[in-house]
């Protein structure tokens, strides 16, 4: 099921029978369009589906959907072409899809040896790179041709849950892993620049602040979100408490430099807002939205 929360007041819902959503991304070109990577049986077994939905006045309509033979765990829109998306699957593959093309993926790359849990398309001008993170503990960087990968980066000692390009620094991305570290990588040097032991538990998500190139947040199985300034990694700038289960995903708002959202296994989505008067993030959840368990 995909729920679109609009203006906090209305909720538009798209139900996908027998498919459980793993990732949702809004198109950078068509603001009313979202892509959703979904899997059968909560991603434990079975197939996957990639959905492209358009928001209308009344709800969400299906634009396109494709089936895949394994679960799909993440999706990213191309930053260069409004029709193109990349998805990562449980079989270790990345697939490139075209909304103008109906049935088959444009390309499939099977290099990872375990589940691809995260894909991201770089946003900085001048480069068009895809980064994928896998449970095989490696990160791969690709160009849109997807074959072969441009580089494979090793270093994490646990499954990788999230790899996100920096919106500011070209060729730089962050990764979050089951080994409890947040790592910052430089693609040109094919090296890990920083390894931060951010949590004592697995880190399921990370994201960059869109307004401050030094700020990264991590969300962990320990139920906390930590906000880090990469110039001083000895301790987090702040630690946000309140979720009662693991943090599944977090995102800094692209619209408001003071807002960070997180969703959790505790069935809530929360927004945190940074107070103007203090330079660090307020340890509070401003608003919690509860998703009803079906």
């Amino acid at each position, binding site marked *: 099921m995909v729920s679109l929360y609009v203006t906090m007041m209305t909720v538009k819902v798209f139900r996908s029978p027998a498919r459980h959503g793993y990732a949702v991304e809004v198109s950078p070109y068509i603001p009313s369009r979202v892509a959703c990577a979904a899997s059968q049986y909560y991603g434990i*077994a*079975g197939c996957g589906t990639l959905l492209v939905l358009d928001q209308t006045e009344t709800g969400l309509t299906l634009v396109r959907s494709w089936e895949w033979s394994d679960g799909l765990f993440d999706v990213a829109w191309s930053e260069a072409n409004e029709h193109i998306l990349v998805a990562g699957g449980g079989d270790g593959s990345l697939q490139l899809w075209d909304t103008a093309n109906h049935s088959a993926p444009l390309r499939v790359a099977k290099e990872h040896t375990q589940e691809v849990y995260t894909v991201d398309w770089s946003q900085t001008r001048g480069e068009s790179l895809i980064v994928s993170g896998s449970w095989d503990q490696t990160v791969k960087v690709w160009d849109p041709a997807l074959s072969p990968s441009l580089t494979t980066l090793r270093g994490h000692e646990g499954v990788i849950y999230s790899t996100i390009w920096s919106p500011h620094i070209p060729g730089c991305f962050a990764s979050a892993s089951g080994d409890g570290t947040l790592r910052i990588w430089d693609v040109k040097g094919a090296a890990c620049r920083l390894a931060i032991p951010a949590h004592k538990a697995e880190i399921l998500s990370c994201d960059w602040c869109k307004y401050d190139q030094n700020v990264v947040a991590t969300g962990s199985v320990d139920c906390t979100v930590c906000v880090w300034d990469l110039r001083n990694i000895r301790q987090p700038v702040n630690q946000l408490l309140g979720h009662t*289960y693991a943090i599944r995903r977090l995102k800094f708002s692209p619209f408001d430099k003071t807002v960070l959202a997180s969703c959790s296994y505790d069935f809530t989505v929360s927004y945190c807002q940074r107070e103007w008067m203090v330079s660090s993030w307020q340890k509070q959840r401003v608003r919690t939205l509860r998703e009803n368990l079906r």
Partner: protein
Amino acid sequence: MSELTGFHSSAVMHRLKIISGHLPPGGSSNFRRDLRRSDCGSATAASSRSSPEDVVVVHGRRTAIGKAKRGGFKDTTPDELLSAVMSAVLKDVGLSPERLGDVCVGNVLQPGAGALMARVAHFLSGFPESVPVYTVNRQCSSGLQALFNVAGAIRSRAIDLGLACGVESMSLRGIGNPGDLSSRLMDNDKARDCIIPMGITSENVAERFGVSRETQDAFALRSQQNAARAQRAGLFDHEIVPVTTKFVDDEGKERQVTVSRDEGVRPGTTLEGLAKLRPAFKPDGSTTAGNSSQVSDGAAAVLIGRRSAVEALGLPVLGVLRASAVVGVPPDVMGIGPAYAIPAALQQAGRKCLYADVSSSDFRLRFMKDLGIPPEKVNPNGGAIALGHPLGCTGARQVVTLLNELKRRGRRAYGVVSMCIGTGMGAAAVFEYPGA
């Protein structure tokens, strides 16, 4: 719509493992949780029913049981006895007392069930002031009730680990002052029955349920023989904490003695000797000094905790509390208490009885037969007749003796602790020894 395509089950299991690792195992943490990962219950029989939420016994020790008024502890205050076992238990497992969430002590005869005495013992053991302590009095079951209370606090997640103890000095305090009771007591049948002496209730049971003098003496002999055999074989050496204490002799001279053996055991007991004893409570009665439980001094302490917390500290699991029951029965035949409490506890545990440590005497044999418990499984190392019955201590003492015996036997097994309770109750608990 789509069918489940051919899928490697190892991949499925791997995904399940990764994702279930995002959920916490049952255990304490900063946040209270309603949902937690727990081991699948449909595993093999050997490892089934083991849950991180189990209340487990880590370790227990007891003092020797002294004969009241004449034995080695006759001049020892209960706080000394209690302190000795509390310290010993924690020292044995290397646990700092700061880890205890609470301490509950069963006691009957001290003023206020020994609440002040317990706190004094606590400090004599060097426990930090930050650890709380309280006492509980459910007459003869107080030591077991202390364990139930601590288990309850563990289950409600108020604490992770606690000490359940029992102590009594029947040398220094008698059953004496009954307290302030309403004059209406004498007009209320059941209330009046509560002040019947225990010996008379014993006679009542013998009469009403047809338990002969011979049966009672035979049971007493068995208790003495079992206890003597166990003592000779050194079966209690492991659990007894030797206590060095002051002893004032007949001339009023004070010296130090070390008490490390149960004093109530009479290895030379014979049926003929028992038959010669005169009834102690009723002229033509059947209850004698030989087939009754003894008046004694002693203390015991048991460390219990939630399995997840215990395992996180690297502590061993000696036994698992599987069921507990307390029932009410007519005060004038309070001795039948176990006959009702044991089935209630067994039902809760869903088990048949394999071994029972049953306190307090005589005609229990009759009820063991009714319950279908083979006699050889009742008090194989002796019971209260031979070992003695320091009121508040007994419940905790029985747990220590029971689990140590099950451990000695080695196999995974269940055991029952039970006793009748003055004023008309019975209590029972089922423990599981997980196997060597």
